[in-house]
C-alpha cells in the first residue's frame, strides 16, 4: 500500500516457502503479524526501520499464501518461526508480536530465548486468565463485520470499508480469516499451558495495549503482564486492538523507548 523500499525475500522451511519482508538496518527486529495480515503495509514500520533491521515473515495462509498440508494449529507456526530465526541466524532479536502473532512470540520465548534480546507483545492473545464460562477473548468468528470493527477500533469510523475493496483484496481478507481460524480455533486463541511456562521468558518484556481494545481488554493485558517476570504494560489512549494503526506515533515512541 505504501511506496517504500521493502523487499520481499523467501526462505524454504519444513518444505514451506515463507515470504518475509526485510527493510532498514540495525539490530534485528522480527515482526509477527496478527489475524489482519502483514503489518509492513502500515507507515509505523518505516519509522522503526530507521533504527532496526525489520524482518517480517508472512504466516502461511495469510496474504494469499497457501496453508501447508501439514499445518494444524499454532504450534506449527511457532516451530516454523523458530526455524526461521535459525535459518537467518539472527541474534539479539527484538521480537514483536501483534495479537495472534503476540501469542506466537510468547510461545517462541518460552521455548527458547537464546536468539532474543527483547520481547514486545502488542494486544496479544494466548492466555485465558478467567474461568471456563468467562469470554476472555471476544469470539471474532461469531460477530458481524460491523461488530468486528467495534471490537478492533477505538474509532470504528476509521476502519477500512470492506465493501469498497476489490475482489482480490476481499478474497485475501477471507483467506486471512481461514488462516486465523486454523491457528486459533480451539482452545480459542490461547494455550492453556502457556501461563505455567511464561516464567521461562528471560528477556525484558513490554506489553503495549490499546486502551479501547475490546477484543482483549487492557485488564487482559495486565493479567498477561503479571505472568511474565519483570514485564511492564503500557496503554495507549484512543487506540483499539491495533494501536499502530490508530496511534502510530505513540506506538513507535513506546517501542523505541523500550528497545531503541
Amino acid at each position, binding site marked *: 500500500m505504501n511506496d517504500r523500499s521493502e523487499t520481499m525475500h523467501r526462505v524454504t522451511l519444513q518444505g514451506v516457502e515463507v515470504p518475509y519482508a526485510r527493510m532498514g538496518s540495525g539490530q534485528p527486529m522480527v515482526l509477527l503479524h496478527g489475524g489482519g495480515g502483514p503489518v509492513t503495509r502500515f507507515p509505523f514500520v518505516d519509522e522503526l526501520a530507521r533504527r532496526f533491521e525489520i524482518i517480517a515473515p508472512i504466516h502461511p495462509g495469510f496474504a494469499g499464501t497457501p*496453508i501447508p498440508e501439514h499445518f*494444524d494449529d499454532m504450534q506449527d507456526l511457532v516451530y516454523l518461526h523458530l526455524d526461521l530465526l535459525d535459518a537467518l541466524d539472527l541474534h539479539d532479536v527484538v521480537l514483536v508480536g501483534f495479537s495472534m502473532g503476540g501469542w506466537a512470540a510468547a510461545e517462541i520465548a518460552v521455548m527458547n530465548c537464546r536468539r532474543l534480546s527483547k520481547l514486545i507483545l502488542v494486544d496479544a492473545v494466548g492466555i485465558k486468565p478467567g474461568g471456563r464460562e468467562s469470554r476472555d477473548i471476544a469470539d471474532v*468468528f*461469531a*460477530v*458481524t*463485520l460491523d461488530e468486528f470493527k467495534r471490537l478492533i477500533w477505538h474509532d470504528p469510523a476509521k476502519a477500512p470499508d*470492506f*465493501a469498497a*475493496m476489490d*475482489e482480490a483484496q*476481499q*478474497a*485475501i*481478507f*477471507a*483467506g486471512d*480469516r*481461514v488462516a*486465523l*481460524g*486454523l491457528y486459533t*480455533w*480451539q482452545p480459542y486463541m490461547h494455550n492453556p499451558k502457556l501461563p505455567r511456562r511464561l516464567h521461562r521468558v528471560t528477556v525484558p518484556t513490554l506489553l503495549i495495549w490499546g486502551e479501547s481494545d475490546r477484543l482483549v481488554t487492557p485488564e487482559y493485558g495486565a493479567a498477561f503482564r503479571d505472568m511474565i517476570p519483570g514485564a511492564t504494560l503500557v496503554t495507549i489512549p484512543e487506540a483499539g486492538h491495533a494501536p499502530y494503526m490508530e496511534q502510530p506515533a505513540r506506538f513507535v515512541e513506546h517501542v523505541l523507548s523500550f528497545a531503541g
Partner: protein
Amino acid sequence: MKAWFFSEDAYPHLPAEDSYESIRVNLPNRHYDPEVGAELYHRYLDMWLMAEEQGLEIMLNEHHQTATCVVPAVPIMAGILARQTTTARILVLGNPISNIARPVRTAEEMAMVDVISRGRLECGFVRGVPYESAPANVLPYRGTERLWEAHDLIVKAWTDHDGPFNFEGRWFHARQVNIWPRPYQQPHPPVWVTIGSGPSARPVAEHKYVGAVFLAGYPDIRRIFDGYRAAYEQAHGCETPLDRLAYACLLYVSEDAQDATEGANEVLWYMTSNKVAPQWQNPPGYHPPQVAAKVMFGGLSAAGVPLQPTLEQQIARGNVFAGNPDQVFEQIRAFWEYSGGFGHLLVMGQAGFLSEARTNNSLRLFAKEVYPRLKELTAGYDSGRMRELRAALPDRESNPVDSFRVDFVR
C-alpha cells in the same frame, strides 16, 4: 424410483422475524415451549408412520441450535422409528461426521438402529451446512477430509469382526475398536453421502455410494450429476446405475388448485424462514476464500437457500414440485429427464406450519397418483434413450438474480 418422505421437524412458533437476528445458532431457546415441542415430535413421528402406510420410505436428518430442525440427535428419531415401523427403509441423511468427536459412537448408534429395524437402515454421512460449525465448535477447514477419515473408521468398525483394531488418524483416535452390536446388514448398511459440484462427488462415486443432491435445481443439477457419473464410470468402467443418485425437493400435491398453491407456499417456509446471521454462514474454511468473500461481501446465500424465494420461481427452478398429481408428475418427469435420471426422490413434504391434514392429504395423493407413475418412469429407464432426450434439451442458464450458486454439501 424410491420416494423418501421427510420433514425437518421445524419448531415454527417463533416471534416476529425482525425481533431476532438469526433463526439458527443464537436464537434463545426460551422461545421453545417444550409442551408444544412434545406435540410436534409426536405429530412428526405419526407423519412418518403414515408415510410407511402409504408405501413410502422414511428419511430423517439432523441440525443443531435451530428452530428449523429440532432433531439434534437423529439416531434417537431413527431408533424410535426402527421400533415403530416394520417395512419402510429408514434413511438417515445424515450423520454430520465432520463435526462429531467420536465416529465410533456413530458406528454404534447406526449398528443398533440397523439391528432393531432388522436391516432397514440406510446410513448417510454429511459434512453439514456452514451454520453447524458454531454449535459443534468445529473448524470447518478440511471438513471433507475429516468426513472421509470418520467414514473410514466407521466402516471399519462395522466390518471388522476379529476383536479390537487400532485407528490413529489425523483427527480421530480409537485404539481398541470392537463395537457391539455389529450391523444387521452385511457387510454394512447402504451408505449415502451428500454431494455438490466440484470434487465432492468423486469419492462417493468411487465407493459406489448414493450421491444425494439438495435443491440444486435446473441450474446446477447436470453439473453435479455429471460429475458423479463421470467419476463412477472412470472408477468402475460402467454406467452409473439410477439408484446411485438422489434428488431432494420440496413437494405438495392437491387436487384443488388454490389448496395446491397455499400448501406449497407453506412448505416454502423452509426457504422463507431461513434468516441466518452472516457470521454463521461463513465460518472460516467452510468455503474457499473466493467464495467466502462473495458470501461476506457479495450477498450470496451460503447454503444454497435462496435469499428471496417465490413459489413460481422455485417451481420453475426445479426445487419445488407442486400442483395436482398430473402437474407434479409432469414437473418431476421433466426435471428427471433434464438431469439425466436419478433413482431416489427425497420429498420434503412437510415444513413450517403445514398442517397434519394437509400433509397427509398431499402424502396420500402423492403415493396414489404420482409415485406409481414415477416407478413406471424409472422402470423404463434406458441409458441410450436418456442420452437422446438429454441432447434434445439444451443446458439451462442459472438465474444470477437469485444469487443461488454457492456450493454446499449439507
